[in-house]
């Protein structure tokens, strides 16, 4: 059986360590105080924010939009082995850059539009609504 000093020692250590474990999330997550040495539990809360959804279309003379498959236009095979720069669009600039590559593939009269939404902590933010001719920038 444990001696009294051992029990007192355990008590002190328990309170100190349990206090440290609990203080981290309380200070950082509730009080929002910057305390770099303390631990918080915010797993995966900051990842995947560099993610956008994209949809391309060719604007026709009649004013309509014909869907464009970026894989097909760029001659890239769809799937896991596709270059990540084509598969996952992380920024609006990257979406524009892909669109401009498609312009070059489609020829001088092409009119490529992009519909882009990018991730935020609260949802999706619409960045491009198809009202910008990406081919014009290169002309």
């Amino acid at each position, binding site marked *: 059986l444990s001696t009294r000093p*051992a029990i007192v020692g*355990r008590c002190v250590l*328990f309170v100190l360590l349990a206090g440290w*474990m609990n203080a981290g*999330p309380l200070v950082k997550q509730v009080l929002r105080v910057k305390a770099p040495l303390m631990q918080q*539990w*915010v*797993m995966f809360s900051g990842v*995947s924010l560099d993610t956008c959804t994209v949809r391309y279309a060719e604007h026709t003379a009649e004013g309509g939009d014909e869907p464009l498959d970026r894989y097909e236009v760029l001659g890239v095979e769809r799937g896991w082995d596709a270059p990540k720069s084509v598969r996952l669009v992380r920024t609006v600039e990257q979406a524009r850059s892909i669109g401009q590559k498609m312009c070059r593939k489609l020829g001088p009269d092409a009119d490529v539009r992009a519909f882009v939404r990018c991730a935020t902590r609260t*949802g999706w933010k619409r960045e491009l609504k198809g009202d910008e001719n990406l081919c014009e920038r290169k002309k």
Partner: protein
Amino acid sequence: VNLLRRLFAWTILVEGSTRPAALMRMGIVALAWAEWSGAFIGPRSLEPASLLTGVALSVFGMATLLGLGTRVSSAGFAATLLAIYYYWGHHRGVESYVHHHSWVLVAGGMGVALLPAGGSYSIDRWWAVRRARRRGEPQPPESGPLWGQRLIAMQVSLVYFWGAYDKLQPGFWSGVRMQHHWLHYYGGSDYPRWVGFPWLMQGISVGTVVLEFAMAFLLFVPRIQVPLMVVGLLFHWGLYQLLPVGTFSLTMWLLYLAYLDADAVHRWIDGMAGPTPGDPTHPGGRPPAG
């Protein structure tokens, strides 16, 4: 007052089998080595601090794994993990060493150092048994104070509770943050066209929050902890398969041992034992060959 007294007895005075502590002892070393030993390989850096960390990780780790001078070696091992987290991670700025999975390993290592983790499955135990036999004394019991086990369990519950708390925001609750993860890791930038994708993501999100809050508290309830652990094992297995979580899933699995009644684990392990091969006196044992 009575409740406080019971809580004190449950946390500080608790004693029991050392087998779960011993299993965690071995598991934590294996996981910490998997996580960090590659970073502190001697010839890679001749900087004294790096060499010292590498040697400590290796020597204390080996002794802790084998249960050799476990009181000292496990304390040294925990100190090494703390040094990796605070000195290398925070002070020297190695970002990957201050991730949540790193702290769970550190907390596990500290908890093991506060337990009589050499009381079972160890060289210390082997020596203690030999010494007792030599002196004609009964074998020493595999038991000791288990307050460190309560600390480990508390840490695991804190991971769940605050992890769920962080997810209590519209972006996660609505399933949109899960959509981001799905597209980022799997789908790429083509938003899935199949019906039900947003609902599936929302279902997974809500389920995760509910499960994490439940795990934070209910893992302490003996009557339901085993089925809940099965759910937890599947949850962490899923995380391991779907996200780059490194050693986190296995560490959480391992530390579930801290919630269990240590004596019940001891009895369960005893109950698993079959007849000793080659022991004719044991029911079902085979006589020695030849």
